[in-house]
Each structure stands twice: as C-alpha cells, then as structure tokens.
C-alpha cells in the first residue's frame, strides 16, 4: 500500500514537472501563437491593429502570473482556449481523445496479436527458413515509415480494390486501415523483445528439466517459457505508448481522422500554446498511468516479485538473469 502511495506521489511530481517544463519551453520559443495568427498576411492587419489585439489577449501580463493562472486553470480542469481557433481546449480534447484512444487501443491489441503470433510461430516451427523469415519480419516492420504504409494501404485497399472507403466511412470501416497502419510498426519491437526473451528463457536450466521430464515443445512454450518471457515484453509495452502517440500524429493526418495526433500536428504548426500545454500534460498523464499499471502488474505476473515488493530482505530471492533484464 505504502509502495502504491509512493508511486502515486511520484506520478504527481512527474506531471507537475512536465507541466512546468512545457510552460517554460513554449514561452522560450521564438514567436507566439498570436503572432502566427494575426500576422498571417491573409488577414492584412496593420502593425497597430496587431499590437492592440495582442494587448487584448493579455500578452503583457507577467509570466509568473500567467503560469499561476494556467496552473490553477489546469487544476480546476479548465485548459483555456485555442488561440488559433478560439475553441475551448476541453472541447477539442473531448472530441479528439475518444477517437485516438479507440485507434490506439485497437492498434495495440492488433500489434500484440501480430507480435505473439510471430514469436510463437517462429519458436514452434521446425523449418529453419520459415523461422528465419518470420524473425526477419519485425526488422522490416520497424523500418517501414508509418506515412508510407498508410498511403500504400489507402491506395491499394481503398482506391484500387475498393474494399473499404476512406472518405465518408462509417466508424468501424474507418478504423480498419488506420489500425493496420499503426499496428505494424508497434508490433515490431514487441515481437523482437518477445522472441529474444523466449530464446533466453529456453536456455534456462528449468526448461531442460521440464523437457527432460517429457513435456512437449508446445507445452513447454505455453506453460513455462511464455510465463517467464512475458515480463520484458510488458515493460516495453509501457514504453511503446510514446510510439503510439507519435504514430497517431501521422496516421490521423494521412487518414484525415479527428484525434489527439492530428490536434498535435495542427497545434505545433500554429504554436498554439494552450492546446500544446494540455496535450503534453495529458500525454504525460497517460505515460504515468501506463507505467504505474505496468509496475503494479509485475507482482501479479511474477510471484517472486510479489515477495520482493513487500520489501523484506529475508524473503527476497536472488534475482535470476531474466529478471535483471526486466528491470533494466
């Protein structure tokens, strides 16, 4: 319990640091959103008009005061207004977040499915060529640029074969190609880690013992090896959240979907500070929660860690090489 509380405290500190760092960095950037918006030559505003507008937006307010104002707003759940559009940031996030969460979760599940299938098939197969082929796939997947994959999938499956529409698609149809686009690069590191830990665990002495007792290859893989190989994979899964967010930027733009990624792309190009601030804090929150969940999941997955987390040296076993790998 104490452990959990400490982790939550840590998470709060991480969030605050993310907030403060974003605030400072966004202020330090050359130019600002107001400048980008109102000095857009398509508006044709004069220098005096722009100066008056800047004043009405409160650019003269001292930074510490702005910081406090923004922070108290965030704590109260008010993220302010987008400077570029004037839309409340909460409204933008409320429309975008569910879309991105659906996309990211579906892509993640598909990625896990692809990774597990690749790892298991390559470990079970008796044909060396098939094993070699399957094991080289993640290397290929990880090097395919997401935007290229997206465009190719659209051209082939939507425009040529006309299997799924991209424009005016219903929500389910509209998910198929983006999910595929996002899942492929995510599945690659998962598969690579899983394959490696399966290989490592298979060399462990206990596997030889089980095999010597007559267990089949498949049985050993499912019951003994997989259980031990899963930990490093769970760790990497937590880290992959960043990849998912990055991938969403590209996927959502290529497919013209609403979402946090698309919002990020637009906010970055307009230097829309309130939107960026909210997205960074939200992403940090997602990171913190995922890693918290991963941490809390360890003891569930591995009984040895359960005893370890109680923190008494008396019961702590000597860590196996596999566990060291997981902690790294």
């Amino acid at each position, binding site marked *: 319990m104490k452990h959990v509380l400490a982790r939550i405290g840590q998470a709060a500190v991480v969030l605050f640091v993310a907030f403060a760092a974003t605030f400072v960095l966004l202020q330090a950037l050359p130019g*600002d959103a107001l*400048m980008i918006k109102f000095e857009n030559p398509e508006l044709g505003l004069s220098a005096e008009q722009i100066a008056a507008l800047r004043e009405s937006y409160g650019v003269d307010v001292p930074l510490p005061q702005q910081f406090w104002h923004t922070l108290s707003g965030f704590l109260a759940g008010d993220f302010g207004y987008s400077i570029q559009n004037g839309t409340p940031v909460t409204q933008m996030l409320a429309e975008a977040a569910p879309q991105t969460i659906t996309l990211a979760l579906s892509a993640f599940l598909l990625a896990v499915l692809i990774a597990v299938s690749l790892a298991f098939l390559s470990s079970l197969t008796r044909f060396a060529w098939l094993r070699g082929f399957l094991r080289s796939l993640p290397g290929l997947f990880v090097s395919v640029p997401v935007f290229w994959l997206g465009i190719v999938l*659209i*051209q082939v499956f939507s425009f*040529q074969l006309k299997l799924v529409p*991209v*424009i005016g698609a219903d929500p389910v149809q509209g998910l198929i190609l983006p999910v595929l686009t996002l899942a492929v690069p995510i599945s690659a590191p998962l598969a690579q880690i899983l394959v490696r830990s399966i290989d490592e665990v298979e060399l462990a002495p206990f596997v030889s013992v089980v095999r010597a007792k007559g267990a089949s290859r498949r049985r050993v893989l499912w019951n003994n090896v997989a259980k031990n190989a899963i930990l490093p994979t769970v760790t990497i899964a937590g880290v992959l959240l960043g990849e998912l967010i990055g991938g969403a930027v590209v996927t959502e733009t*290529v497919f013209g979907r609403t979402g946090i990624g698309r919002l990020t792309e637009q906010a970055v190009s307009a230097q829309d500070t309130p939107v960026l601030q909210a997205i960074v804090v939200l992403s940090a929150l997602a990171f913190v929660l995922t890693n918290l969940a991963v941490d809390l999941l360890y003891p569930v997955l591995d009984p040895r860690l359960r005893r370890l987390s109680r923190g008494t040296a008396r019961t702590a076993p000597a860590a196996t090489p596999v566990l060291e790998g997981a902690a790294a």
Partner: protein
Amino acid sequence: MSRITRTLAAATAALATAALLAACAGTAAPEAGGNADPAAPVTGGTLTYLEHQAFTNLYPPQAGFYPNGGVVNNIAARLTYQNPETLEIEPWIADSWEVNADATEYTFTLRDGVTFSDGTPVDAAAVAKNFDVYGLGNKELALTISEAINNYASSEVVDAATVKFHFSAPAPGFLQATSTINSGLLSPATLDLPLEKFGAGNAAAIIGAGPFVVSEEKLGTELTFTAREDYDWAPPSLKHQGRAYLDAIHLIVTPEDSVRIGGLTSGQADYIRYVQAFDEAAVESAGFELYAPQTRGVNNSLSLRFTNPLLSDLRVRQALVAGVNAQEVVDTLFTANYPVATSSLSSTALGYKDESEHLTFDPKKAAKLLDEAGWTVGADGIREKDGTRLSLDVYEAKPQPLSKQTLELVSQQLKAIGVELNVKAADAGSYAEDIKDPLKTPLYHSMVGRADLDVIKSQFHTKNRNVLLSNDTTLDALLEAVASEPDPAKRLEADAAVQDYLAEQAYVIPLFEEPQVYGAADYVEGVEFESVGRPIFYDVWLNK
C-alpha cells in the same frame, strides 16, 4: 508534416498514379453518357467536397484564408455581387445604391423579405451594424477591422430599407468591398459574439443569409451544409433563382494530397480543392474536370526589401529581376494554369498594366548591372564588394504553392549571375518573427487575391501588409491615390502609376499569376467561383 507527406506523395507517385489510372478508367466512362445530355438542373443530392485544410475562424474579415472563405462564401450573402466574369458590381441584398461625387457617402436600398437563417430580417439596422463592426472593429470582442474597408466613419439608418455609410476620406473601393466575403452579412446576434466564438467548433452558430447553413460540425474534420428552403434572394443577374440545387454538402478535411486526388478519382468524393500542379495530369487523364479560377490580385512574387543594405542599390535589384527566369519556373514546376507574370498585378486583375519590358530575363544584362554596381565575382563564384558577399536569405512560404521548389529554382538561376540565395525553412513562430526584419528576410515570397484596385495598396502600403517593409513615401503616396481617387478613370491611372513605379524601382520579382485549382467529377455541374476563386455551391447540381 505536410512537406514530409508531400515528398512522400511524390515518392509513391509512380505506384499511385499507375494504380489510379487503372482504377479510374473504368468508373469515368459510364458517367460520360449523362453529361452529354444538357438536361435541366436537378434539385437534390449531397455533394462530397474534400478540403485541404480545416477552417480556423468564420469572422468574415478573417475569411481571406481559403478554408475560411470557402465556408463564409456559402453561408453569408452580401450587399452586392461581383460578376466573376465581367467583375462588374451587381445587386444582391442591395437593390440599388448611390455614391456621392467624392465617394464619401454610399446609400444602399435593400431588397425586401430577406432573412438571416435565425429568422431576423436583413434590414437597414442589421446591415449598418455589420459595417460598423467591419469598418471600425470591436476591441472588446477582439473583432478586427476588415482590410477591404478604408476610411470608414459611420453608418446611418435612413429607414428600414435604406442605409447610408459615411467615410472620412474618399473610399472608391467600398462598393467592391461590399461584394467580398470579408463583408459577408451576419445576423446582429452573431456579431455580438467575441472572436473566439467564430472559431472552429462553433460553425453552426454563425448565422448568415446565404443559400446554405452549417448544420453539423465535427471539429477539425467535417462540416455539413444544408440548403435553406426559403432562400429566394440570389443575385438577380443569375439565371438560377430560389433555393440551391443541392440538398447538402459534406465537406471533409483531407490534408493528404494523394488521398484527396485518390478520393476523387476512385469515386469516393465528387469535388476537391487544391490540386497540386504535379497532380493535375493525374486528375485530367483519369477523365475528371480541372477548374483553375484565377485569384486576380497581386501576383505570386518575391518582394525585394530595399531597406536591406545589399538591396538598396537600384542596379542590384534590377539585376535580380533580370536574373530570374519566371518562364522556367512555370515550365518546370507548374502548368498552363499558372501564367507567367507580366506585372506586379495579375493580367486578370482590375487595373492591370503590362510591365513585361521591365521583366525580361536577361542574365547578361544582370551581370553587367552587378559589375557596374561594383560587385565582382569572387573565388566561389558569388560576387563580393568590400569583403561582403552578395548573399541573400529567403524563407519558404508555406501558404504559397511549391514555395520551396520555386525558391530553389530561383536560387539556381541567381547563382548563374553570382548571387547567392539561401532558401530557409522555419517553424511558424520564427517565420512570423523573421519576415518582419529586412536583414533576416531580404526577399519575401507572397501574393494576395482580391478583385479590386485597392488590392495593390493592401499588399504594399506601409500601414497594410507592407511586404516590402518599405520606407518609401513616394510609393505610399501613389498607393493612397489608388485607394482614395473617386474618379474611376483617374483611379485606373493611379493604379498603372503604382505598377510602373514598382517595375522601374525593381521592387518586386513577379513570378506567376496564381490560380486556385479544383478537381471535380464530370457529373458535377454548375461549378462556379466568386471573383477570387472561392467555390460557389449555389448552382452546383449532380447530373447522375
């Protein structure tokens, strides 16, 4: 992002084009039959329209941004209608008007029975309120002054159907200004909203008197326009009266070029905006229509900021003008829809004067001028004078089509006469800051579209866009004459004088006359554009 994907699109072009051609050959053929029959327009149907970027704000004076203008143009009626072919000003919400001799008083008589889509009448009080906001701004609500309106003083409601506007100085451009989307009439209640409320996410609350209303918005990705059944006040000069033919328009924001093109050619969309020059062939060869209305304003050009010491010498500027081969830029990067510029103004602009004698490509003359100015070729091929290299910077301008490629080609051309042009790219913030400094941005890539003589003042006057970052009072005086000369003939002369001056002083390198390029399926009939190339959906109907 868009640059990456654009490069990408180019990279996959071979594959994509082949695929598209194969896919589309089949779909285009059967529809050709329907097109041959010049049938009467059909009412009904929904148009799927793909837009390149999401709109940002629907406050009419900010509608210069094409995605904003495309929406405002279809939901807001205006006092007058500028015939896109003749550029004449014709009645719309105003039945008739009178202008006093020195263009300081405009009196409009309004048409009867016009209503905003919230039911309030478009009467003199409403119109007066519109122009008070657009002419004077509203600081409290952060509503800005419209760039199209000069010297506005006040409004006067004479009676319910008559409204009068007073100006502090002659405002000959005002009549045309009442026809532009920047003067789109909005319901008085809408004009009480602060600027934020005109932003994305609130489109359905922007109430105009146009043929369509925004009935649904998916933030940043989709807009649905619905036809107003009771719309019965189209400009009288149009053949089509009454409600719009289409029931609805489904506007989908599709930023990726290849997806917009593929969406059109695969039949998933009917009509798209922003066909890049390199995609035009793919659209046409697949049997689809290209539309390239001109923007009729200041040409796509490079402004030479003469307050930068390197460009203060007229001979250096003349050399740069003579060293740039605009024809090669168009031939290499663009298509026949982008005519080579022959003045600072487009040849389709009002008041255009041919200045091509000042704009001929002549590298020998350029070299001679630079020699005379004392710039000698250094060891690296770039000219030098007193230890200073003739090295200039220009920023890629994201709103201009193929800006980077254009500038890189110009840079190659200038290298041949010993001038270094560094093409720089920057994030929006640094860009907005640096383009205001003639030392950091001696050359500036821009254009502006508006079908009135005032457009040239908008671009070059020190109190407007000031693209030259000028301190030239002669130029300002010439520009003010254009904006305040009440006599139409003298106004045209004033406009020609500005073009002469810009060409003689070699202040700009005009490149090409910029169009807006759209693609549509052949069953999309009645495709029309207002005078600056924004789509009018009122006459569009589906012949299928």
